[in-house]
């Protein structure tokens, strides 16, 4: 028998971690400092190709693309964090309540929940946006509520499956009240699945926000987001392709990072799916 050397994290976790770590750093820096003012117009340097002065070039108004990407990262990450928080908090409350009450309350709540799930997520968001209006907070509200039903469904499923576990029966035999059992035993055991869910939702939300901004229904210009930068690049894509390349690359790398991290977490939670290594 031979011991194994220091165990490296699997490659997907490593790459995913680096990508997401970089995103968070860039977003953090972008919120405080950017090389140029992302909103300052400069018609002398409009549509400039990447150079030493403007690393990633400038857009049709002469704004620095790098600065706008950094500010956009800050905006996107912030929106995604708030949206996921909203969906997770509301969804958890609904799911816990439904799973705790069971019986007809559960059936009614879940019937509504499932009917909302019958709208594809982005469609529900579009419908809500039509009501609340297309702006930063509208997007958070619309996306947050659009993703709430899936959180509620997963939390309720977790609660119901935990209820079947013998340690919940053990808690009841001890004489603990239902409410105590819920808070002490069920809620803490929902944290792990919720973390996994929140991570992958962060990816969905970032993508959805970019898509809505791309459609012109997200954060309104001139404030930069990756989505509205891409939308703005479309008329100039032939003459200034860096305008279309870099924002798309940022979104793709972020999603890649999230997907890789998600895979790594799933492999860890369910090692069967990997080889017996």
């Amino acid at each position, binding site marked *: 028998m031979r011991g194994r050397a220091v165990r490296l994290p699997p490659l997907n976790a490593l790459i995913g971690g680096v990508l997401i770590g970089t995103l968070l750093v860039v977003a953090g820096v972008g919120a405080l400092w950017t090389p140029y003012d992302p909103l300052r117009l400069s018609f002398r340097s409009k549509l400039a190709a990447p150079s030493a002065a403007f690393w990633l070039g400038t857009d049709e108004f002469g704004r620095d693309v790098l600065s706008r990407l950094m500010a956009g990262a800050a905006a996107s990450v912030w929106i995604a964090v708030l949206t996921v928080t909203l969906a997770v908090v509301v969804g958890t409350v609904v799911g816990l309540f439904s799973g705790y009450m069971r019986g007809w309350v559960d059936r009614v709540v879940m*019937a*509504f929940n*499932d*009917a*909302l799930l*019958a*709208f*594809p*997520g*982005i*469609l529900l968001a*579009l*419908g*809500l*946006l*039509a*009501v609340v209006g*297309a702006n930063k907070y509208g997007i958070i509200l619309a996306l947050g509520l659009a993703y709430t039903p899936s959180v509620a469904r997963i939390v309720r499923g977790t609660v119901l499956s935990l209820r079947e576990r013998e340690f919940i029966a053990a808690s009841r035999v001890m004489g603990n009240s239902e409410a105590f059992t819920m808070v002490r035993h069920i809620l803490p055991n929902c944290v792990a699945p919720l973390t996994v869910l929140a991570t992958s939702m962060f990816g969905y939300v970032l*993508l959805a926000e*970019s*898509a809505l901004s*791309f*459609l*012109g*229904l997200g954060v309104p210009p001139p404030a930069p987001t990756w989505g509205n930068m*891409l*939308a703005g*690049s*479309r008329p100039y*894509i*032939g003459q200034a*392709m860096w305008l*279309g390349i870099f*924002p*798309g690359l940022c*979104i*793709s*790398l972020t*999603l*890649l990072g*999230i*997907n*890789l991290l998600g*895979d790594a977490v799933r492999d860890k939670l369910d090692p*069967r*799916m*990997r*080889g017996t*290594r």
Partner: protein
Amino acid sequence: MLRFALTRIVMAVPTLLIVAVSVFVLIRLIPGDPASLMLGDLATPASLADLRTRLGLDQSLPVQFAIWFGNLLRGDFGVSINSQEPILPLIVSRFWISAQIVLVAVLLASLAAVPAGVVAAWKQDASLDIGLVALATLLLSIPTFWLGLLLLLFFGLKLGWLPVVGYVSIGDDPWRGVLYLVMPVTTLFLHEIGVLLRMARASTLEVLRLDYITHARAKGLSETAVLWRHAFRNAFGPTWTLIGLVLGNLLGGIAVVETVFTIPGLGRLLVDSIFARDYPVIQGCLLFVALTYVLVNLVIDLCYPIFDPRVTAQ
């Protein structure tokens, strides 16, 4: 089997009802008088009063819903504020444009991704598997609107092989119609390959561990027979369900691809209506897509026993 089918069909009814209620309530949440919202700026006092009676606005909310719902059942989705056209024919004509893109893309993606996923699972952890999974994850991570933009940049602008923007109906001019569809279909195709390949691989891995696979091998069957006769059919169920979800999600999210390629589909109709505050059309689009989604998933559900006869039990 009949009982299973009937149960599923009957179970879809409350879902459809709640969907209708949600859409009704959603639009009523907008502050302001529904009649003036529905008529827009062109409203005259006479037409307002007329619409108020037609919508039953002087009566209670449930009655209003009943009137609205009754109209829906008769195919009356209302009239667009902007074009003054009846909404249902408008939606249906736009729907076919979107649907052909989505259907062709998902069909091609399934044909490519499912066998690839099964083979990847069979070769688990070999370089073929790692390569396929890496490719799928990469494709999955590229948003369709950027992928479309890249295709447009490369094949449309740099190489000039394909028309850049616009749409020609296949009925009017089959050859040009197909040319205009190539890039949007390719965009969705590449993205969905990623989604479906990963699912097909995961569910095949799940099945390959089971005893009946070893049993099949223990009978002396060849690996090909084990994989396709025994593993594939049992592993395909989850992927089949996913195909239904993908169809619906694409229909809901196709607006971005239609925007990239300037295609007058259902997604664009919805987004333009949101810009124009054309509430009757928004309402109609939401309802129509949600209904389609529920129906597609119902059909998918009804076919499920082909892959797993156990679901008809009980």
